[in-house]
């Protein structure tokens, strides 16, 4: 017996996807008013927003590069939130990961680059996992709430980084500079994550898409971190929905008491959620380091290294429905907003504060629109259910 959705409901699904988009547009409209208030032209501004995010190959590359740590932190958040743990320690975990990667990279400068790169990435995952694990253990065995511990651990990680970069890891050249800037040596170029622009150009040639202009992907800064992140997103999806471990993580998240009765060791899975989540954030730090930054600098504190990805990753994950695959477009969109926002500021010369407020508005509106999507989907289920019973009644009634 086929369950055919009537036409109106099929249209409804598309509308669902568009609702968050409407929310974004509404936020942008209010943003436009703010732009007017600052005596700039909203149309120019939003044209710049688009250009900055998608207008040129460089822009798209920037967007994807910006999205990479968001995606990585985001898939970790999917694990932790689904496991019932609120991990706001992404910043600290990223820093731990970055520190590990820079330490390994500087120590093994001479060794075979591929091995060292892998060591750095694995090391950054482990470092982040350990940092997250601390919060996990504190929660499971000492009843210290993870919101508190992760907020505190963020700052502790930041200060530790500042100390290490200023003393142990400081660039030897800086020591002789007139005014030493606390930054590490630049990692050797052999440790840069490979750029994938060249491959994309080849793909374009193959598909016959090349324009004749000089703008090739090869000159952009797009590195393979985004590919790593994509692959990991798929793996985490598999982990959460196709493995026993993933099942247990989600069970503990949904109902710890029932899980305990079912024999699942809840404490262990709480720790595991934070360990995995921290690991991905740490990896985000490592990839930022090897792919984009190539050194750590303590001057700006945590946010100069992470770009606030520890928090923005949470936003991306939640926009993606706490689903790793949904986090992919969510982080790309959010990355676009961030990169485009910078271009907006540059182009129409409004204060960057306006961009910050605008992004806040977008987050608030999108997150607030979610209820309408949920209500609609619930109505859909209710309608579909009544359709099923109607059909069943029909089937029964007919001889």
């Amino acid at each position, binding site marked *: 017996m086929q369950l055919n959705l009537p036409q109106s409901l099929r249209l409804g699904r598309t509308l669902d996807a568009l609702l968050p988009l409407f929310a974004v547009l509404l936020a942008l409209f209010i943003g436009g008013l703010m732009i007017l208030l600052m005596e700039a032209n909203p149309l120019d501004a939003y044209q710049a927003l688009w250009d900055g995010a998608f207008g040129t190959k460089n822009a798209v590359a920037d967007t994807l590069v910006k999205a990479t740590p968001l995606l990585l932190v985001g898939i970790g958040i999917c694990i932790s939130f689904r496991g019932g743990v609120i991990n*706001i320690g992404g910043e600290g975990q990223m820093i731990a990961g970055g520190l590990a990667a820079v330490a390994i990279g500087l120590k093994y400068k001479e060794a075979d680059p591929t091995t060292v790169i892998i060591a750095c990435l694995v090391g950054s995952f482990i470092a982040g996992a350990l940092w997250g694990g601390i919060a996990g253990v*504190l929660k499971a065995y000492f009843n210290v*709430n993870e919101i508190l511990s992760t907020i505190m651990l963020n700052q*502790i990680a930041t200060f530790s980084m500042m100390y290490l970069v200023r003393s142990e890891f400081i660039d030897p050249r800086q020591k002789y500079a007139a005014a030493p800037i606390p930054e590490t040596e630049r990692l050797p170029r052999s440790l840069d994550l490979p750029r994938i622009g060249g491959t994309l150009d080849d793909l374009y040639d193959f598909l016959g898409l090349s324009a004749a202009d000089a703008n090739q992907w090869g000159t952009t800064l797009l590195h393979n971190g985004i590919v790593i992140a994509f692959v990991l997103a798929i793996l985490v999806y598999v982990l959460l929905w196709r493995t026993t471990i993933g099942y247990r993580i989600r069970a503990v998240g949904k109902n710890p008491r029932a899980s305990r009765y079912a024999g699942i060791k809840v404490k262990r899975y709480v720790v595991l959620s934070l360990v995995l989540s921290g690991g991905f954030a740490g990896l985000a730090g490592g990839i930022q380091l090897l792919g984009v930054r190539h050194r750590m600098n303590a001057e700006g504190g945590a946010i100069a290294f992470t770009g606030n990805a520890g928090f923005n990753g949470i*936003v991306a994950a939640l926009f993606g429905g706490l689903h790793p695959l949904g986090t992919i477009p969510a982080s790309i969109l959010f990355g676009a907003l961030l990169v485009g926002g910078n271009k907006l500021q540059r182009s129409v010369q409004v204060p960057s*504060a306006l961009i910050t407020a605008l992004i806040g508005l977008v987050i*608030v509106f999108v997150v607030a629109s979610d209820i309408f999507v949920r209500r609609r989907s619930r109505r859909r289920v209710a309608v579909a259910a009544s359709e099923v019973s109607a059909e069943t009644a029909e089937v029964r009634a007919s001889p």
Partner: protein
Amino acid sequence: MIDDLITASVLASGIRLATPYLYAAIGETFGQRSGVLNLGVEGVMLMGAFTSLWAVYEVTPAGATSYYGPALLAGVLVALLVGLVMGLATAVINVTLQAQQGISGIGIYLFGLGMSDLLFQKVFGGQVITVNGFPKVDIPILSDLPVLGDIFFRQNLLVYLAFALVPVTWFVLNKTTLGLNIRAVGQNPEAADAMGISVTRVRYFTVTLGGMLASLAGASLSISLVNVFQQNMTAGQGFIAVALVYFGAWRARGVMFGALLFSLVNALQLQVRTKGIDVPDEYASMAPYLLTIIALIFASRRIDQPAALTKPFERGE
């Protein structure tokens, strides 16, 4: 050496530093007790900080050399009003629209951070303006007590008010019907609803109150502690305040201890460095954060959070 470090001045400084945390954390306590997590406290603090400074600036007659009472009153009222508006907005977003609370808070934070700076640039052209804020008020008799007098009773009005809120909060939460309703809604909204308590109305109240107190926290910074506004001047204090609610196990007294512990350690580490004691700067700065965690490990009792925290409530679910 200890009495070199733990001086009356250090303790008094710690109490002052605790004030913004206390306001914000108490506000957040109300909200969380009723089941709503608001991570956007910092944004509201910044809005309160700027608007109250602006009000004081506008109302103070030109050329005034010391504080002007009506200006300070205006500052506080404006802060409360702004906090009311933002608190209501937060309530609409988190309660009626049932947004994901962790993330709506981040949005509110970014909005408040950006908007306060934007207004600052629009109104003052980014010029840093100082105002004559709340002066120290010596409480008669008590301020003459040796040692204790200097520490506790020579602070400004907003400091006294913050600490006065602690017993008031305890009273409201534990001895009034309102408090009972708040706690019921936070523990078991379905049951509360069945008993006729309007979950929505209670949560609106607590979240709006939280907004007003967060805004006042910002004002306590800009018009009493430092008498100036700068972009992002709270530098993470709002988030610490949220963390302190967990530290205090959702009780006013615990929250106060948390705020005091954190701030006193901060004041202490500054004193250590002022005295030239050789400790790496970053370790000293880390101390309040580390000690807060350690304190909680040792003090941890099995206090469970309000069962319905972060879960939106809908009738007939």
